[in-house]
Protein backbone atom coordinates (compact mmCIF):
# COMPACT_ATOMS: atom_id res chain seq x y z
CA UNK A 1 0.00 0.00 0.00
CA UNK A 2 1.27 3.46 -0.89
CA UNK A 3 2.20 5.74 1.98
CA UNK A 4 1.11 9.38 2.02
CA UNK A 5 3.47 12.00 3.36
CA UNK A 6 2.59 15.42 4.69
CA UNK A 7 4.49 18.02 6.67
CA UNK A 8 4.57 18.18 10.44
CA UNK A 9 3.01 21.43 11.79
CA UNK A 10 4.76 21.39 15.18
CA UNK A 11 7.38 24.03 16.05
CA UNK A 12 10.92 23.56 17.27
CA UNK A 13 11.29 22.94 21.01
CA UNK A 14 14.29 24.04 23.02
CA UNK A 15 16.51 21.30 24.36
CA UNK A 16 15.81 20.53 28.01
CA UNK A 17 18.81 20.42 30.31
CA UNK A 18 18.64 19.06 33.84
CA UNK A 19 18.84 21.56 36.66
CA UNK A 20 20.05 20.50 40.07
CA UNK A 21 17.80 21.45 43.01
CA UNK A 22 19.12 22.87 46.26
CA UNK A 23 20.26 20.40 48.95
CA UNK A 24 17.52 19.53 51.42
CA UNK A 25 17.75 20.48 55.10
CA UNK A 26 18.53 17.89 57.82
CA UNK A 27 15.85 19.42 60.00
CA UNK A 28 13.60 22.47 60.08
CA UNK A 29 14.04 22.91 63.82
CA UNK A 30 15.53 26.32 64.56
CA UNK A 31 15.28 27.30 60.92
CA UNK A 32 13.40 30.12 59.15
CA UNK A 33 10.94 29.06 56.47
CA UNK A 34 9.54 31.72 54.16
CA UNK A 35 5.93 31.25 53.10
CA UNK A 36 5.95 33.13 49.80
CA UNK A 37 2.63 34.64 48.75
CA UNK A 38 2.50 34.69 44.96
CA UNK A 39 -0.41 37.15 45.16
CA UNK A 40 -2.75 34.87 43.35
CA UNK A 41 -6.39 35.08 44.39
CA UNK A 42 -6.54 34.47 48.19
CA UNK A 43 -3.11 32.90 48.60
CA UNK A 44 -2.31 35.24 51.47
CA UNK A 45 -5.19 33.83 53.52
CA UNK A 46 -4.07 30.27 52.83
CA UNK A 47 -0.46 30.97 53.80
CA UNK A 48 -1.63 32.70 56.96
CA UNK A 49 -3.26 29.44 57.95
CA UNK A 50 -0.12 27.51 57.15
CA UNK A 51 1.85 29.93 59.32
CA UNK A 52 -0.60 29.22 62.16
CA UNK A 53 -0.04 25.49 61.63
CA UNK A 54 3.70 25.93 62.11
CA UNK A 55 3.15 27.95 65.30
CA UNK A 56 0.96 25.20 66.74
CA UNK A 57 2.82 22.10 65.59
CA UNK A 58 6.42 23.16 65.09
CA UNK A 59 7.05 26.20 67.30
CA UNK A 60 10.79 25.78 66.79
CA UNK A 61 10.37 26.75 63.14
CA UNK A 62 10.12 30.44 62.35
CA UNK A 63 7.54 30.76 59.55
CA UNK A 64 7.55 34.15 57.82
CA UNK A 65 4.86 35.15 55.33
CA UNK A 66 6.36 37.23 52.53
CA UNK A 67 4.46 38.68 49.56
CA UNK A 68 6.34 38.92 46.30
CA UNK A 69 7.01 42.50 45.28
CA UNK A 70 5.19 42.46 41.99
CA UNK A 71 2.87 40.44 39.82
CA UNK A 72 3.81 36.75 39.80
CA UNK A 73 4.63 37.08 36.10
CA UNK A 74 7.75 39.10 36.98
CA UNK A 75 10.95 37.84 38.54
CA UNK A 76 11.54 39.20 42.04
CA UNK A 77 15.28 39.02 42.82
CA UNK A 78 14.90 41.33 45.84
CA UNK A 79 12.65 38.83 47.57
CA UNK A 80 14.77 35.86 46.52
CA UNK A 81 17.88 37.56 47.93
CA UNK A 82 16.10 38.22 51.21
CA UNK A 83 15.05 34.59 51.50
CA UNK A 84 18.55 33.39 50.70
CA UNK A 85 20.19 35.67 53.26
CA UNK A 86 17.66 35.44 56.08
CA UNK A 87 15.93 32.12 55.51
CA UNK A 88 16.69 28.46 55.10
CA UNK A 89 13.75 27.17 53.04
CA UNK A 90 10.69 28.39 51.17
CA UNK A 91 7.13 27.31 50.51
CA UNK A 92 5.55 28.99 47.49
CA UNK A 93 1.82 29.27 47.16
CA UNK A 94 -0.60 29.09 45.75
CA UNK A 95 -0.37 28.17 42.11
CA UNK A 96 -3.91 27.74 40.97
Amino acid at each position, binding site marked *: *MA*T*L*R*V*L*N*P*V*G*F*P*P*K*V*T*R*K*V*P*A*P*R*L*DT*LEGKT*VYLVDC*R*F*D*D*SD*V*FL*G*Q*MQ*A*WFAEHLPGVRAVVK*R*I*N*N*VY*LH*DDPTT*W*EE*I*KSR*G*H*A*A*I*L*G*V*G*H
Partner: protein
Amino acid sequence: MTLETGYGVPTVAVHTDKFDKVVRSVAEVNGMPGLRQVFVPQPIMGKTPAELRAYVDGRDPLTGRPVMQEVLEGLTRPFEADELGPAEFDRTTPPLVEGASEDALHRLFLEQRWTDMLPIVLPTEARVAEMLAHTRRKPDELVGRMRSTHFREHWAYSVEKVAVNAVMAGARPEYFPVILALAATGVTARSSSSSAMAAMAVVNGPVRHEIGMNAGTGAMGPYNHANATIGRAYGLLSQNGQGGSVPGLSYMGNQGNNYAYNSVTFAENEERSPWEPFHVQHGRRPDESAVSVFSGVRSTSFTLGLRETYWREHVRNLLRGIDPNGPPTLLLDPIAARQFVTRGGFTTKAALIDWLHDNARMPAGEYWDYQLVQNYIYPRATFGEEPWASKLAAAPDVSIPMFRREDIHVVVVGGETNGYWRIMGCNYQKTVSVDDWR
Protein backbone atom coordinates in the same frame (compact mmCIF):
# COMPACT_ATOMS: atom_id res chain seq x y z
CA MET B 1 12.55 26.77 40.41
CA THR B 2 14.43 30.07 40.48
CA LEU B 3 14.85 29.81 44.25
CA GLU B 4 16.14 26.23 43.97
CA THR B 5 18.59 26.67 41.15
CA GLY B 6 19.51 30.35 41.31
CA TYR B 7 19.62 30.90 45.07
CA GLY B 8 20.16 27.42 46.54
CA VAL B 9 17.05 27.56 48.72
CA PRO B 10 15.15 24.28 49.20
CA THR B 11 11.61 24.95 48.11
CA VAL B 12 8.19 23.34 47.97
CA ALA B 13 5.51 24.69 45.64
CA VAL B 14 1.87 24.39 46.68
CA HIS B 15 -0.76 24.25 43.91
CA THR B 16 -4.41 23.44 43.58
CA ASP B 17 -5.19 19.97 42.27
CA LYS B 18 -6.69 21.09 38.94
CA PHE B 19 -3.22 22.18 37.90
CA ASP B 20 -1.32 18.96 38.59
CA LYS B 21 -0.58 18.05 34.97
CA VAL B 22 0.37 21.53 33.90
CA VAL B 23 2.73 22.23 36.81
CA ARG B 24 4.41 18.83 36.54
CA SER B 25 4.85 19.44 32.82
CA VAL B 26 6.29 22.92 33.42
CA ALA B 27 8.74 21.47 35.95
CA GLU B 28 9.80 18.76 33.50
CA VAL B 29 10.41 21.08 30.56
CA ASN B 30 12.39 23.38 32.85
CA GLY B 31 14.72 20.51 33.70
CA MET B 32 13.41 19.78 37.20
CA PRO B 33 10.94 16.90 36.94
CA GLY B 34 11.37 16.05 40.61
CA LEU B 35 10.50 19.53 41.84
CA ARG B 36 8.72 19.11 45.15
CA GLN B 37 5.07 19.99 44.60
CA VAL B 38 2.13 19.56 46.95
CA PHE B 39 -1.54 19.91 46.07
CA VAL B 40 -4.58 21.24 47.87
CA PRO B 41 -8.19 21.34 46.62
CA GLN B 42 -9.37 23.93 44.12
CA PRO B 43 -10.43 26.69 44.72
CA ILE B 44 -8.52 28.89 47.13
CA MET B 45 -10.39 32.00 46.04
CA GLY B 46 -13.32 32.98 48.24
CA LYS B 47 -12.73 30.37 50.93
CA THR B 48 -12.84 31.39 54.59
CA PRO B 49 -9.75 31.17 56.78
CA ALA B 50 -11.32 28.14 58.51
CA GLU B 51 -11.90 26.40 55.19
CA LEU B 52 -8.32 27.07 54.14
CA ARG B 53 -7.07 25.82 57.49
CA ALA B 54 -8.88 22.61 56.67
CA TYR B 55 -6.85 22.43 53.45
CA VAL B 56 -3.64 22.81 55.50
CA ASP B 57 -4.75 20.19 58.01
CA GLY B 58 -6.11 17.93 55.28
CA ARG B 59 -4.72 15.59 52.70
CA ASP B 60 -3.27 16.15 49.25
CA PRO B 61 -6.23 15.18 47.02
CA LEU B 62 -3.90 13.53 44.51
CA THR B 63 -1.76 11.41 46.82
CA GLY B 64 -4.05 11.04 49.85
CA ARG B 65 -1.15 11.96 52.14
CA PRO B 66 -1.28 14.77 54.74
CA VAL B 67 -0.46 18.10 53.10
CA MET B 68 1.95 19.28 55.80
CA GLN B 69 3.73 15.94 55.92
CA GLU B 70 4.43 16.29 52.21
CA VAL B 71 5.56 19.89 52.70
CA LEU B 72 8.00 18.97 55.48
CA GLU B 73 9.34 15.99 53.56
CA GLY B 74 9.73 18.13 50.48
CA LEU B 75 12.11 20.40 52.34
CA THR B 76 14.07 17.72 54.19
CA ARG B 77 14.09 14.45 52.19
CA PRO B 78 17.11 14.27 49.86
CA PHE B 79 16.50 13.73 46.17
CA GLU B 80 16.93 10.26 44.76
CA ALA B 81 18.91 10.01 41.54
CA ASP B 82 15.86 8.98 39.52
CA GLU B 83 13.96 12.10 40.61
CA LEU B 84 16.37 14.37 38.82
CA GLY B 85 15.53 13.19 35.32
CA PRO B 86 17.82 12.82 32.33
CA ALA B 87 20.79 15.14 31.93
CA GLU B 88 19.36 16.37 28.65
CA PHE B 89 16.53 15.51 26.31
CA ASP B 90 15.28 16.72 22.97
CA ARG B 91 11.62 16.77 21.88
CA THR B 92 12.17 17.66 18.24
CA THR B 93 9.73 15.83 15.96
CA PRO B 94 10.37 14.61 12.38
CA PRO B 95 9.64 17.09 9.57
CA LEU B 96 7.37 14.66 7.75
CA VAL B 97 4.41 12.59 8.89
CA GLU B 98 3.27 9.45 7.13
CA GLY B 99 -0.05 7.67 6.87
CA ALA B 100 -1.63 4.87 4.88
CA SER B 101 -4.46 7.07 3.63
CA GLU B 102 -5.87 10.59 3.86
CA ASP B 103 -8.36 9.36 6.44
CA ALA B 104 -5.54 7.92 8.52
CA LEU B 105 -3.65 11.20 8.38
CA HIS B 106 -6.74 13.19 9.37
CA ARG B 107 -7.19 10.86 12.35
CA LEU B 108 -3.54 11.25 13.28
CA PHE B 109 -3.74 15.06 13.20
CA LEU B 110 -6.83 14.92 15.42
CA GLU B 111 -5.24 12.46 17.85
CA GLN B 112 -2.10 14.57 18.09
CA ARG B 113 -4.29 17.62 18.79
CA TRP B 114 -2.76 19.52 15.88
CA THR B 115 -6.17 20.82 14.76
CA ASP B 116 -8.93 23.00 16.18
CA MET B 117 -11.23 19.95 15.93
CA LEU B 118 -12.61 21.13 12.59
CA PRO B 119 -11.56 19.40 9.35
CA ILE B 120 -8.23 20.58 7.96
CA VAL B 121 -6.51 20.57 4.59
CA LEU B 122 -3.65 18.08 4.70
CA PRO B 123 -0.33 19.93 4.32
CA THR B 124 1.15 18.04 1.40
CA GLU B 125 4.55 19.05 0.09
CA ALA B 126 2.94 20.50 -3.07
CA ARG B 127 0.45 22.64 -1.14
CA VAL B 128 3.08 23.91 1.24
CA ALA B 129 5.39 24.71 -1.69
CA GLU B 130 2.63 26.76 -3.30
CA MET B 131 2.18 28.70 -0.05
CA LEU B 132 5.92 29.28 0.21
CA ALA B 133 5.99 30.73 -3.30
CA HIS B 134 4.09 33.79 -1.99
CA THR B 135 6.95 35.13 0.10
CA ARG B 136 10.54 35.98 -0.75
CA ARG B 137 11.58 34.60 2.63
CA LYS B 138 13.42 31.28 2.77
CA PRO B 139 11.53 28.23 4.12
CA ASP B 140 14.01 27.62 6.92
CA GLU B 141 14.10 31.23 8.14
CA LEU B 142 12.91 31.53 11.72
CA VAL B 143 9.84 33.77 11.99
CA GLY B 144 9.42 33.95 15.74
CA ARG B 145 8.85 32.17 19.02
CA MET B 146 5.76 31.60 21.12
CA ARG B 147 4.73 30.06 24.41
CA SER B 148 1.34 29.48 25.95
CA THR B 149 2.18 31.07 29.28
CA HIS B 150 4.91 32.97 31.04
CA PHE B 151 6.06 29.82 32.85
CA ARG B 152 6.58 27.72 29.76
CA GLU B 153 9.49 27.58 27.39
CA HIS B 154 9.45 29.35 24.03
CA TRP B 155 9.22 27.20 20.90
CA ALA B 156 10.42 28.53 17.55
CA TYR B 157 8.87 28.23 14.08
CA SER B 158 10.15 28.74 10.56
CA VAL B 159 8.53 30.16 7.44
CA GLU B 160 7.82 26.58 6.37
CA LYS B 161 6.10 25.72 9.68
CA VAL B 162 3.88 28.78 9.25
CA ALA B 163 3.08 27.64 5.72
CA VAL B 164 2.12 24.15 6.95
CA ASN B 165 -0.37 25.62 9.40
CA ALA B 166 -1.68 28.06 6.80
CA VAL B 167 -2.40 25.17 4.45
CA MET B 168 -4.15 23.26 7.24
CA ALA B 169 -6.38 26.28 7.87
CA GLY B 170 -7.47 26.38 4.24
CA ALA B 171 -5.78 29.70 3.52
CA ARG B 172 -5.01 30.68 -0.06
CA PRO B 173 -1.32 31.29 -0.86
CA GLU B 174 -1.89 35.01 -1.49
CA TYR B 175 -2.85 35.40 2.19
CA PHE B 176 0.50 34.07 3.32
CA PRO B 177 2.30 37.40 4.01
CA VAL B 178 -0.49 38.39 6.41
CA ILE B 179 -0.21 35.06 8.21
CA LEU B 180 3.57 35.39 8.41
CA ALA B 181 3.17 38.87 9.89
CA LEU B 182 0.81 37.46 12.52
CA ALA B 183 3.35 34.74 13.30
CA ALA B 184 6.09 37.37 13.54
CA THR B 185 4.24 39.13 16.37
CA GLY B 186 5.18 36.28 18.70
CA VAL B 187 1.85 36.84 20.41
CA THR B 188 0.08 33.55 20.92
CA ALA B 189 -3.55 33.14 20.01
CA ARG B 190 -3.64 30.09 22.32
CA SER B 191 -2.83 31.45 25.74
CA SER B 192 -3.25 28.88 28.49
CA SER B 193 -4.67 31.46 30.91
CA SER B 194 -7.48 30.10 33.07
CA SER B 195 -9.39 33.24 32.05
CA ALA B 196 -9.94 31.67 28.60
CA MET B 197 -8.37 34.33 26.41
CA ALA B 198 -8.66 34.64 22.66
CA ALA B 199 -6.77 36.93 20.30
CA MET B 200 -8.00 39.55 17.83
CA ALA B 201 -6.30 40.63 14.59
CA VAL B 202 -7.00 43.82 12.64
CA VAL B 203 -5.62 44.17 9.11
CA ASN B 204 -4.97 47.60 7.58
CA GLY B 205 -3.65 48.93 4.29
CA PRO B 206 -3.77 47.89 0.63
CA VAL B 207 -3.46 44.17 1.33
CA ARG B 208 -7.07 44.20 2.52
CA HIS B 209 -8.25 44.75 -1.04
CA GLU B 210 -5.51 42.69 -2.70
CA ILE B 211 -6.69 39.53 -0.98
CA GLY B 212 -10.38 40.39 -0.73
CA MET B 213 -10.74 40.84 3.03
CA ASN B 214 -14.03 42.05 4.42
CA ALA B 215 -14.31 45.22 6.51
CA GLY B 216 -18.03 45.64 5.97
CA THR B 217 -21.18 43.61 6.53
CA GLY B 218 -20.39 40.41 8.43
CA ALA B 219 -16.67 41.20 8.70
CA MET B 220 -16.36 39.46 12.07
CA GLY B 221 -18.52 36.51 11.06
CA PRO B 222 -18.03 33.41 8.89
CA TYR B 223 -18.67 35.17 5.56
CA ASN B 224 -15.28 35.92 4.04
CA HIS B 225 -12.66 33.39 3.05
CA ALA B 226 -9.62 35.53 3.84
CA ASN B 227 -10.92 36.75 7.21
CA ALA B 228 -11.93 33.23 8.20
CA THR B 229 -8.84 31.33 7.18
CA ILE B 230 -6.18 33.91 8.10
CA GLY B 231 -7.54 33.98 11.65
CA ARG B 232 -7.76 30.21 11.75
CA ALA B 233 -4.17 29.90 10.50
CA TYR B 234 -3.04 32.25 13.28
CA GLY B 235 -4.68 29.99 15.85
CA LEU B 236 -3.31 26.74 14.41
CA LEU B 237 0.17 28.23 14.08
CA SER B 238 -0.03 29.38 17.69
CA GLN B 239 -1.01 26.01 19.13
CA ASN B 240 1.41 24.00 17.01
CA GLY B 241 4.23 26.52 16.88
CA GLN B 242 4.33 26.80 20.67
CA GLY B 243 4.25 23.05 21.17
CA GLY B 244 0.60 22.49 22.06
CA SER B 245 -2.65 23.72 23.50
CA VAL B 246 -4.16 20.77 25.32
CA PRO B 247 -6.80 21.18 28.05
CA GLY B 248 -5.43 20.27 31.47
CA LEU B 249 -1.86 20.24 30.22
CA SER B 250 -1.08 23.38 28.24
CA TYR B 251 -4.51 25.04 28.13
CA MET B 252 -6.35 25.92 31.32
CA GLY B 253 -9.11 28.28 30.10
CA ASN B 254 -11.94 27.39 32.44
CA GLN B 255 -14.78 27.93 29.98
CA GLY B 256 -12.91 28.11 26.69
CA ASN B 257 -13.55 30.89 24.21
CA ASN B 258 -15.44 30.66 20.92
CA TYR B 259 -13.57 33.70 19.59
CA ALA B 260 -10.51 31.43 19.41
CA TYR B 261 -11.82 29.63 16.30
CA ASN B 262 -10.57 32.42 14.07
CA SER B 263 -9.12 34.94 16.54
CA VAL B 264 -11.62 37.67 15.58
CA THR B 265 -9.73 38.51 12.39
CA PHE B 266 -11.02 41.27 10.13
CA ALA B 267 -10.02 44.35 8.13
CA GLU B 268 -10.61 47.88 9.35
CA ASN B 269 -13.13 49.82 7.26
CA GLU B 270 -10.71 52.63 6.50
CA GLU B 271 -12.73 53.96 3.58
CA ARG B 272 -15.86 54.59 5.65
CA SER B 273 -14.10 55.65 8.84
CA PRO B 274 -14.09 59.34 9.81
CA TRP B 275 -10.67 58.87 11.44
CA GLU B 276 -7.16 57.74 10.62
CA PRO B 277 -6.60 54.00 10.29
CA PHE B 278 -5.44 51.97 13.25
CA HIS B 279 -2.03 51.12 11.77
CA VAL B 280 -1.36 54.82 11.08
CA GLN B 281 -2.04 55.56 14.74
CA HIS B 282 0.71 53.07 15.46
CA GLY B 283 3.43 54.46 13.29
CA ARG B 284 2.73 53.01 9.85
CA ARG B 285 2.11 54.90 6.61
CA PRO B 286 -1.39 54.76 5.12
CA ASP B 287 -0.06 52.95 2.03
CA GLU B 288 1.64 50.28 4.15
CA SER B 289 -0.08 47.03 4.95
CA ALA B 290 0.04 45.91 8.55
CA VAL B 291 -1.65 43.65 11.04
CA SER B 292 -2.32 44.53 14.68
CA VAL B 293 -2.87 41.92 17.36
CA PHE B 294 -4.73 42.07 20.63
CA SER B 295 -4.65 39.46 23.38
CA GLY B 296 -6.90 38.73 26.33
CA VAL B 297 -10.08 38.95 24.26
CA ARG B 298 -12.84 37.79 26.58
CA SER B 299 -15.62 40.27 27.23
CA THR B 300 -18.00 41.99 24.85
CA SER B 301 -20.66 44.60 25.48
CA PHE B 302 -22.77 46.26 22.81
CA THR B 303 -25.45 48.80 22.05
CA LEU B 304 -27.11 50.55 19.12
CA GLY B 305 -25.94 54.01 18.12
CA LEU B 306 -25.72 57.03 20.37
CA ARG B 307 -28.93 58.62 21.68
CA GLU B 308 -29.12 62.38 21.72
CA THR B 309 -29.84 62.92 25.42
CA TYR B 310 -28.25 60.09 27.36
CA TRP B 311 -25.48 58.77 25.06
CA ARG B 312 -22.81 59.68 27.59
CA GLU B 313 -24.52 57.69 30.36
CA HIS B 314 -25.08 54.74 28.02
CA VAL B 315 -21.41 54.62 27.03
CA ARG B 316 -20.34 54.92 30.66
CA ASN B 317 -22.61 51.99 31.52
CA LEU B 318 -21.00 49.86 28.82
CA LEU B 319 -17.54 50.74 30.06
CA ARG B 320 -18.47 49.89 33.63
CA GLY B 321 -19.61 46.49 32.42
CA ILE B 322 -16.16 45.23 31.52
CA ASP B 323 -13.51 44.09 33.97
CA PRO B 324 -10.98 46.84 34.83
CA ASN B 325 -8.17 44.44 33.96
CA GLY B 326 -9.47 44.07 30.37
CA PRO B 327 -9.33 47.56 28.86
CA PRO B 328 -11.79 48.59 26.15
CA THR B 329 -11.29 48.51 22.40
CA LEU B 330 -14.30 50.03 20.67
CA LEU B 331 -15.33 48.30 17.45
CA LEU B 332 -17.49 50.88 15.74
CA ASP B 333 -19.66 50.48 12.68
CA PRO B 334 -19.07 53.59 10.50
CA ILE B 335 -22.56 54.83 11.42
CA ALA B 336 -21.67 54.73 15.12
CA ALA B 337 -18.25 56.25 14.43
CA ARG B 338 -19.84 59.23 12.71
CA GLN B 339 -22.27 59.58 15.60
CA PHE B 340 -19.32 59.90 17.97
CA VAL B 341 -18.16 62.76 15.72
CA THR B 342 -21.53 64.52 15.54
CA ARG B 343 -22.74 63.90 19.10
CA GLY B 344 -19.43 64.22 20.92
CA GLY B 345 -17.36 66.34 18.56
CA PHE B 346 -14.60 63.73 18.49
CA THR B 347 -12.84 64.60 15.26
CA THR B 348 -9.97 62.21 16.02
CA LYS B 349 -9.73 58.81 17.63
CA ALA B 350 -7.42 60.38 20.21
CA ALA B 351 -10.13 62.81 21.29
CA LEU B 352 -12.62 59.98 21.72
CA ILE B 353 -10.06 57.96 23.69
CA ASP B 354 -9.48 60.94 25.99
CA TRP B 355 -13.21 61.13 26.67
CA LEU B 356 -13.46 57.39 27.27
CA HIS B 357 -10.56 57.53 29.71
CA ASP B 358 -12.08 60.42 31.63
CA ASN B 359 -15.55 58.87 31.75
CA ALA B 360 -14.80 55.23 32.57
CA ARG B 361 -14.66 55.66 36.33
CA MET B 362 -15.64 53.95 39.55
CA PRO B 363 -15.04 54.48 43.29
CA ALA B 364 -11.48 53.55 44.27
CA GLY B 365 -12.62 51.07 46.90
CA GLU B 366 -14.74 49.22 44.35
CA TYR B 367 -11.92 49.26 41.80
CA TRP B 368 -9.25 47.85 44.09
CA ASP B 369 -11.53 45.07 45.26
CA TYR B 370 -11.78 43.48 41.80
CA GLN B 371 -9.98 40.14 41.95
CA LEU B 372 -8.02 40.70 38.76
CA VAL B 373 -7.02 44.17 39.92
CA GLN B 374 -5.75 42.60 43.11
CA ASN B 375 -3.86 39.93 41.18
CA TYR B 376 -2.30 42.02 38.43
CA ILE B 377 -2.53 45.75 39.14
CA TYR B 378 -2.33 46.18 42.91
CA PRO B 379 1.24 44.78 43.13
CA ARG B 380 2.40 47.24 40.48
CA ALA B 381 0.71 50.10 42.33
CA THR B 382 2.44 49.18 45.57
CA PHE B 383 5.74 49.35 43.69
CA GLY B 384 5.03 52.95 42.75
CA GLU B 385 4.09 52.39 39.12
CA GLU B 386 1.89 55.16 37.73
CA PRO B 387 -0.93 55.84 37.20
CA TRP B 388 -1.84 53.07 39.62
CA ALA B 389 0.18 54.37 42.55
CA SER B 390 -1.84 57.60 42.52
CA LYS B 391 -5.08 55.66 42.24
CA LEU B 392 -4.05 53.60 45.25
CA ALA B 393 -3.65 56.78 47.26
CA ALA B 394 -7.26 57.79 46.60
CA ALA B 395 -9.85 57.37 49.36
CA PRO B 396 -12.29 54.48 48.79
CA ASP B 397 -15.17 56.73 47.78
CA VAL B 398 -13.15 58.87 45.35
CA SER B 399 -13.97 58.30 41.69
CA ILE B 400 -10.92 57.11 39.71
CA PRO B 401 -10.35 56.16 36.05
CA MET B 402 -10.78 52.44 35.40
CA PHE B 403 -8.21 52.25 32.60
CA ARG B 404 -4.96 53.78 31.44
CA ARG B 405 -5.43 56.06 28.43
CA GLU B 406 -2.84 54.15 26.39
CA ASP B 407 -4.77 50.90 26.83
CA ILE B 408 -7.96 52.23 25.18
CA HIS B 409 -8.37 51.77 21.41
CA VAL B 410 -10.84 52.38 18.60
CA VAL B 411 -11.28 50.42 15.35
CA VAL B 412 -13.94 50.99 12.67
CA VAL B 413 -15.56 47.90 11.16
CA GLY B 414 -18.98 47.11 9.76
CA GLY B 415 -21.20 47.49 6.73
CA GLU B 416 -23.62 50.19 7.89
CA THR B 417 -26.66 47.92 7.85
CA ASN B 418 -27.21 49.56 11.24
CA GLY B 419 -25.30 51.51 13.88
CA TYR B 420 -24.62 48.65 16.29
CA TRP B 421 -21.24 48.77 17.94
CA ARG B 422 -19.43 46.88 20.63
CA ILE B 423 -16.65 47.05 23.15
CA MET B 424 -14.12 44.24 23.34
CA GLY B 425 -12.23 43.93 26.61
CA CYS B 426 -8.69 43.14 25.44
CA ASN B 427 -5.05 44.21 25.37
CA TYR B 428 -3.42 45.70 22.27
CA GLN B 429 -0.02 44.10 21.78
CA LYS B 430 1.68 45.24 18.61
CA THR B 431 1.45 46.16 14.92
CA VAL B 432 3.63 44.31 12.40
CA SER B 433 4.29 45.09 8.74
CA VAL B 434 2.76 42.71 6.21
CA ASP B 435 4.95 44.13 3.44
CA ASP B 436 8.07 42.88 5.21
CA TRP B 437 6.79 39.34 4.75
CA ARG B 438 5.84 39.47 1.08
